[in-house]
């Protein structure tokens, strides 16, 4: 199984770098994973999105639909992409420790 290493810490991840045990998520995970998603430092804006996604996931067991993320955080989609350059699915969900959203089909 691939691992993701940062400052001596090791995380079990899948090929795309998603955390394998969503329960093991802590705020450190988001901080540690940020660099790999081309984010220099996590701002309040990032946390607003991450926390919303994380809480939604804990409550409903699924990732919120993208439009819902925009509505609830007040960010336009373009702003979400500015915060998370690899996008809400690949970027924000990964930092929030969600399982990998399903692909193309």
């Amino acid at each position, binding site marked *: 199984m691939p691992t993701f290493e940062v400052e001596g810490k090791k995380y079990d991840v899948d090929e795309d770098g998603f955390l394998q045990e969503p329960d093991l998520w802590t705020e450190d995970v988001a901080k540690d994973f940020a660099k790999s998603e081309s984010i220099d430092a996590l701002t309040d804006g990032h946390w607003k999105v991450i926390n919303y996604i994380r809480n939604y996931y804990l409550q409903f067991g699924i990732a919120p639909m*993208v439009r819902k993320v925009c509505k609830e955080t007040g960010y336009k989609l*373009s702003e979400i992409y500015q915060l998370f350059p690899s*996008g809400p699915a690949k970027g924000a969900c990964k930092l929030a420790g969600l399982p990998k959203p399903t692909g193309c089909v």
Partner: protein
Amino acid sequence: MADADEGVKPANGKPETKLLDELEKGPWPSFVTEIKSAQGVTGGAEDLLGQLELSYEDKVSHWKHGGLVGVLGYGGGVIGRYSDVGEQFPKVAHFHTLRVNQPAGWFYTSEALRTISDIWERHGSGLTNMHGSTGDMILLGTTTDHLEATFQELTHAGFDLGGSGSAVRTPSCCVGMARCEWACFDAMKLCYDLTMAYQDELHRPALPYKFKIKCSACPNDCVAAIARADLSVIGTWKDDIRIDQAEVANYATAGVDIQKDICANCPTRCMDWNGKELNIKNRDCVRCMHCINAMPKALRPGVEKGAVILIGAKAPILQGALLSSVLIPFVAADELLDTLKELIQRIWDFWDEYGTNRERIGELIQRVGLAAFLDGIGLDPAPEMVSAPRDNPYIYYQPAKEDEA
């Protein structure tokens, strides 16, 4: 064909591909030969061949469940693929695919093809699909570290990625006015204009599920819009079929049995041939194209051209397959772009409000009913939208609205 001994010998470490080699025989051009011819590029093709041979032996796919990779700023356009036998075939352990938005009508110059080929030689397996089922050019197989570089070389060469995931999928269209005398609107231009209008929605998935747009410029529907597109734009005309009686007579002389082959096959029996003259009761004509297809020199669509807008086609998953159904019976050709943009926005607003995750627009309409959908997007019901009015009396009268009126 090499003789048996040579055929199975692993030359310079290349995998044995006994089963696939079978598929190099026979008259139809072989995809196995194509894969082999790309073996020099990065080695990806070589290992693809090895893994595929294994699938032919095992009768199962050796790709893992889809990956999630991409380029910065986009939420789609790249399909992640990982092998489940990556140790055996390391060069396809990561083998991602880029969808590249095709030029309208799939026209290329030799220079454009070479540009793409060169980019894909530098950054990928050298294998492509011309084209994928949605219409994109498919660049098959590369690693994550090459995605960004490939993407930038593509955009600098005037190409861009197509759609994937819960987004507008790459619109596609028939050849239309570029080479077809039957085109009732400019499908290539409309397709291009819509694609440009929805770059954001195409590259950054934000819809409940995928949304496909296809434009066929006449009822022959060469891009299968009615079967595959959530929004199908299919050309038609309002006025009379143009007839060149002299050419009709020429077809008759040349052996076409006008009565039997043409008139008797007309679905509404609105044609009549008296041996000299072909008469069409245009009011009854449903613009099916049969007679025009059969006698292209003699018959042509009318001049008052436009399109029918249909909605909701999809493959079986989840609630069963659907063909698109009529939403607007006629929009004049020069009003198509504006009408569609406005309509699409209303459809998306409704879908956004009522659609559930991974629910196609056709399924949503099935669930809430076409009448409620029409109310929601502000369209009046029209008899063209149904094959027949309802035959059951379970009518949801609307007491509140009736009282108001």
